[in-house]
């Protein structure tokens, strides 16, 4: 266990980093810096056509008629396709990742504003959009269900009449924990605090919207699909199932991806439309959605209405946590989560605390809103879980009159309790929480901040200090517990060492900006001693990489990172045997020192990995039973998730005259186990903290009572700019994962999970003089103003 402050101010080039972990500049940067990245919209193929989608202007309506004749006659138009046409090919509906179905193009009804109704294929982008204007659709408008609280009322309009026997808007029920045991601890607790919390609907809004280029070759029957996907292999299999194309004739390519954050996990109707269009026209077809389409129709996040209850002794010992959740899943259950986990990993809502009992009951409903349900760097709903527990722990601290840091320190799971099985059945692999918390407090100058707060309050100034401590659960599978539509959550990796000692690594996961080409080269370099500069990392092309489930839920390093380390060890094992032949000693007499095998006791006799690579491919003899070549492939099935943790402290100032919240400081101490590239880790944390500021203070996908989306552009859906965020202060502790080959845990979503409660807790702390115990996100000036006047209201 080491505890170090992180300051990343030193500069060096990559030649100084021959092997292994540590700060290393990114191998992928030069192409991006020169404008040579290759994103989906950069793909230009000869004869390529452009596709645009007509979307529903209303939230709920029966389609009476569609007239496409004028659109078909529009200049440059090659095809106009409706749901009725798709239905003839049995393609009007497709499965979602949660075993529901979703309309590719609406046939009977539209069920949310922005739903896909028809598409046009034309010779250029402009002509395709011109023709959309000419499609005449007659709608018989129906009452929509917008408020999830009313979805199950007996007279609520039925949304999913496409499902056999469906008579209400119920989606699923789910529970976890022990209801009776939890009731018992609540009955004997000195103190019980209850708080209603809303985690509003938000959207990942990556800077690159979703899109695809489909190129179907009718002669050889091969479909090539460039698409904005975080899971190319899983998508390929699903296309094979949906479209009936043989899987070996489908190549899914995720080129450079302009941010994902979960938004690019699902299969969207637009991808399927592009495939259909290419098959119909015999030409390559590009579909790129615009920003409004991205915001109104693709995977949203959150939308949980929660009641949190916490029971404790008078001296601050937490006994139990109980919660009741109403989940809004939109018009189709498009949640991208392992199928046995309809609520994702929300079950970790007991947080970082050693408690006696816990229970959650959840009801999910359909509403006339866009489908989705897991996105925006949430680690499969852990954002919601951590927000719940960290908010109600603060409410408890307020009730008890205890300092929120002290209350957390008093209830942490202790290091000797790991592996720790929570009351909802999760097995935390490792953790050492108190040093992480203490480091954050030291970096923040916590006691000094509290003194400053007292002085400011005396002057009528509003300053708040917010704490959040989180435990994440990342790196899904194991495959026996976790699958997506039957595909087990494991990941492959292949390593080939070429004759000259250079290597290529092929990953089943792919990058949306996380820097895989650097990190994975470092992982392999550490194991096999070839410099990262000599290791090419390939990813994002199903024809050229081994099968795996993809990059989301912070799973690249926990799953594929393990695969990369293990495949390199496999190659090293073979290299050792070849080295023993070259040096004419037994393998037991060889010592490994990054990149070189030496004869024990005779260090002058040695061969390098490059020598061995040449021998492996050369004409010389190899030890008996050893094939030529130096390569291996594995599929890694994780034995458990990894459980990173972190302590976040936020300092805010609230303007008493305008209710504007200013995040003055943010201290983030993360523990993600073994650290491969600290520069990249810091970048991941910074991005997540900024997401947190967005969600806590400004971002929300709101709807009016008719179901019109009020966050349909970046003028309405506010994302933090450089002016809303501070210079982040980061630190770290290291508690390796005991089951991961290199001890690493994921970090991609830690900050998105941990920062919203820290910020909200800080704002509520600032508003204490007004007697405020809670106000829901987003804490915009008007909402904070209302809270200051005792009129806090939920955002939905």
């Amino acid at each position: 266990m080491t505890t170090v402050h992180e300051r990343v101010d030193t500069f060096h080039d990559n030649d100084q980093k021959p092997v292994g972990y540590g700060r290393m500049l990114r191998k992928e940067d030069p192409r991006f810096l020169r404008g040579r990245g290759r994103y989906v919209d950069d793909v230009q193929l000869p004869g390529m056509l452009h596709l645009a989608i007509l979307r529903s202007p209303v939230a709920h309506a029966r389609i009476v008629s569609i007239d496409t004749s004028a659109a078909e006659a529009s200049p440059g138009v090659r095809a106009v396709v409706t749901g009725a046409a798709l239905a003839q090919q049995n393609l009007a509906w497709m499965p979602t990742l949660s075993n529901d179905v979703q309309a590719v193009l609406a046939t009977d009804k539209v069920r949310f504003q922005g739903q896909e109704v028809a598409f046009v294929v034309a010779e250029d982008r402009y002509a395709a959009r011109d023709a959309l204007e000419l499609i005449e659709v007659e709608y018989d408008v129906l009452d929509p269900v917008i408020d999830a609280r009313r979805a199950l009322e007996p007279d609520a309009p039925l949304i999913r009449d496409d499902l056999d026997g469906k008579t209400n808007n119920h989606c699923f029920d789910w529970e976890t924990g022990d209801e009776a045991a939890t009731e018992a601890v609540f009955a004997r607790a000195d103190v019980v605090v209850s708080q209603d919390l809303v985690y509003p609907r938000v959207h990942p809004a990556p800077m690159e919207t979703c899109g695809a280029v489909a190129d179907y070759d009718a002669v050889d029957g091969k479909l090539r699909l460039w698409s904005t996907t975080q899971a190319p292999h899983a998508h390929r299999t699903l296309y094979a199932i949906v479209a009936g194309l043989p899987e070996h004739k489908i190549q899914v390519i995720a080129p450079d991806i302009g941010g994902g954050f979960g938004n690019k996990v699902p299969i969207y109707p637009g991808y399927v439309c592009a495939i259909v269009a290419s098959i119909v026209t015999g030409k390559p077809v590009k579909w790129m959605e615009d920003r409004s389409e991205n915001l109104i129709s693709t995977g949203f996040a959150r939308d949980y209405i929660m009641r949190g209850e916490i029971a404790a002794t008078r001296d601050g010992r937490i006994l139990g946590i109980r919660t009741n959740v109403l989940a809004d899943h939109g018009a189709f259950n498009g949640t991208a989560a392992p199928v046995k986990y309809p609520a994702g990993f929300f079950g970790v809502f007991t947080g970082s605390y050693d408690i006696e009992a816990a229970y959650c009951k959840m009801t999910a409903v359909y509403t006339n809103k866009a489908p989705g349900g897991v996105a925006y760097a949430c680690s499969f709903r852990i954002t919601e879980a951590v927000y719940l527990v960290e908010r109600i722990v603060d409410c408890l601290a307020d009730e008890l009159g205890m300092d929120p840091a002290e209350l957390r320190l008093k209830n942490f799971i202790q290091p000797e309790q790991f592996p720790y099985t929570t009351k909802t059945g999760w097995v935390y692999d490792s953790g050492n929480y108190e040093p992480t918390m203490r480091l954050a407090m030291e970096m923040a100058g916590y006691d000094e901040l509290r003194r400053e707060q007292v002085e400011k309050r005396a002057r009528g100034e509003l300053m708040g200090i917010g704490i959040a401590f989180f435990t994440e659960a990342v790196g899904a599978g194991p495959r026996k517990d976790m699958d997506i539509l039957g595909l087990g959550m494991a990941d492959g990796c292949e390593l080939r060492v070429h004759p000259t000692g250079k290597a290529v690594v092929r990953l089943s996961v792919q990058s949306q900006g996380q820097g895989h080409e650097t990190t994975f080269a470092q992982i392999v370099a550490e194991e096999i001693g070839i410099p990262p500069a000599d290791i090419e990392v390939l990813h994002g092309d199903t024809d050229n990489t081994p099968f795996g489930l993809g990059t989301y839920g912070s799973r690249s390093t926990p799953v594929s990172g393990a695969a990369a380390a293990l495949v390199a060890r496999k190659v090293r094992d073979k290299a050792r045997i070849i080295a023993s032949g070259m040096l004419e000693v037994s393998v037991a007499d060889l010592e490994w020192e990054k990149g070189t095998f030496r004869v024990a006791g005779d260090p002058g006799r040695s061969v390098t990995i490059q020598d061995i690579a040449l021998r492996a491919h050369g004409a010389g003899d190899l030890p008996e039973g050893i094939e030529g070549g130096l390569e291996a492939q594995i599929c890694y099935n994780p034995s458990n998730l990894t459980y990173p943790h972190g302590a976040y402290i936020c300092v805010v100032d609230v303007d008493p005259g305008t209710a504007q919240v200013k995040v003055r400081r943010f201290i983030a101490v993360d523990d993600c186990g073994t650290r491969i590239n600290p520069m990249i880790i810091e970048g991941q944390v910074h991005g997540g903290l900024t997401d947190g500021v967005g969600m806590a203070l400004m971002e929300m996908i709101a709807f009016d009572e008719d179901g019109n989306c009020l966050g349909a552009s970046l003028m309405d859906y506010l994302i933090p700019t450089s002016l809303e965020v501070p210079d982040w202060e980061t630190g770290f502790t290291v508690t390796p994962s005991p089951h991961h080959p290199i001890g690493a845990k994921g970090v991609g979503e830690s900050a998105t999970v941990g920062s919203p409660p820290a910020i909200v807790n800080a704002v509520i702390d600032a508003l204490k003089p007004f007697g405020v115990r809670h106000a829901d996100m987003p804490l915009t000036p008007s909402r904070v103003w209302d809270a200051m006047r005792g009129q806090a209201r939920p955002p939905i």
Partner: protein
Amino acid sequence: MQVTMTVNDVEVTREIEARLLLVHFLRDVLGLTGTHWGCDTSNCGTCVVWMDGEPVKSCTVLAAMAGGHQVRTVEGLAKGAELDPIQQGFMQCHGLQCGFCTPGMMMTARALLDRNPDPSETEIREAISGQICRCTGYATIVRSVRWAAVAEAQAAAQVTETTESTEAGEIDNAGQPAEAVA
């Protein structure tokens, strides 16, 4: 209609629709795909290029309006094989992740340094406040711009000192600024 403009020092003439946006002209007509498109409302700034040395959002400029003007894109930022200090700074300070906002950010940052060679953190944040990055949280972008500012100041000092035949400036062996964080 016909439009003629200079893009990255090369004069180009093309027949275009009058309504064609500059961003689509650059990307789809000229194949300069380093300039990106990210929103419909000129909020995101992934499309920023220069017109006559000033950053503009090319999704809000008609290609026809650029006729007769000098346009510079990210492809015209480096001098041959040598990256501009702004590009070097973004690499050194991890100022990019997915790379989608990066061209626009760098064009704005370069223009900032051209008129203010020593900007404060606040001045940098104000300069890029019309652009959105979803990955980095901006702090490393600010550091990247400061890195470039310091690198250029040190390079200028070295030129001066070399001219005056005085002792070496504060440049380390790798030619990198020894200190660059504001």
